[in-house]
């Protein structure tokens, strides 16, 4: 049990995929303008990440490894992720059309979120069990969601702040992201990741 908790904390906070490993920066910057859409994006990405971590673990250990085709893992995982994202898009369009409209192009672009592929590849390299792989994906997704929502809230307040002219827009967003990244380094000693 404590092992599982350790995996969750280690992936969500200590080895946070966005702020420590710098994966998945595109949605981190792109969808963090409004808190509402950031929460929707976080939920969709959480679903995709967890599901694709599980499925790619199965594909790797049940299909590729027995046939000696480990070298196909990247293309196979991309296939898995694309299918899961497409499935998520269908679900979101059915359950919440407004969220579908708000997320727009960023929903299919989860496919190219390198955090999703990164989680699948890294969890295979850890040689973990199926449950551990799922938790690894869930932890990564929770970390991503936490950072995305925090950053969106931050940017909503930044929009009202009196920022010096040359720093407005993307510049101040980058600077505040790097400050958040520095803050997350404070977790480094928490768990031996």
């Amino acid at each position, binding site marked *: 049990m404590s092992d599982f908790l350790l995996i969750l904390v280690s992936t969500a906070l200590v080895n946070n995929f966005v702020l420590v490993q710098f994966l998945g920066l595109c949605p981190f910057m792109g969808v963090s303008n*409004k808190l*509402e859409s950031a929460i929707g994006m976080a939920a969709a990405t959480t679903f995709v990440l967890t599901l694709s971590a599980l499925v790619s673990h199965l*594909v790797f250990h049940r*299909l*590729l490894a027995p*046939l*000696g*085709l480990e070298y*196909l893992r990247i*293309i*196979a995982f991309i*296939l*898995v992720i*694309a*299918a899961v994202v*497409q*499935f998520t898009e*269908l*679900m979101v*369009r*059915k359950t919440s*059309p*407004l969220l579908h*409209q*708000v997320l727009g192009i960023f929903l299919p672009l989860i496919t190219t979120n390198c955090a999703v592929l990164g989680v699948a590849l890294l969890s295979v390299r850890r040689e973990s069990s199926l449950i551990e792989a799922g938790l690894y994906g869930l932890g990564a997704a929770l970390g991503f969601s936490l950072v995305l929502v925090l950053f969106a809230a931050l940017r909503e307040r930044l929009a009202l702040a*009196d920022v010096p002219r040359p720093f407005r827009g993307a510049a101040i967003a980058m600077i505040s992201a790097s400050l958040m990244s520095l803050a997350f380094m404070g977790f480094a000693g928490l768990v031996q990741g």
Partner: protein
Amino acid sequence: MLELIANHGILAAILVLLGLALAFGALLGFAAERFRVEGDPVVEKIDALLPQTQCGQCGYPGCRPYAEAIGRGEAINKCPPGGEPTIAALADLLGREPEPLDGEAQEEPRVAYIREAECIGCTKCIQACPVDAILGAARQMHTVIAEECTGCDLCLEPCPVDCIELRPREPDAWHWPRPELIASDRHDPPIIAGAASR
């Protein structure tokens, strides 16, 4: 056959990827059938907010086509009969910024007026009015119920004797207009402008 595949790694690779793609394709096809969306629910909601006068002032042949156009990203400020409340409701529904009514529309509210001495009682304007704001009967003089009129000017066209005109809406006599500020009232510098110039 199996031996052939086992001896040629490339065949196994091709078969595995093909199998994966087919399996996912079948799953997605099934999901697309299972979670099919009937029509577009957003368009339904937009359509419910529009005033349903079907006046065509937005440039579309009715409220439903305009709702579909908004769903595709058209501006939300093209509905003069709906006015500000409709724009605000649409902005709220779609999460967009409310905008002032489209520039082509009249700045001030207008109301149709029938010069009653010239009216021949043909009832054509009654049929044209989308909001039933014209009162009258065949070969009787017609008149406009000013409170109901949206100023959409659809009744001007069908009138055979051109006795209808649009006039500026009379101000509401029961409420005094708020006095406008004159220069001597503004001795305090506006707060926001002061913060920006700092």
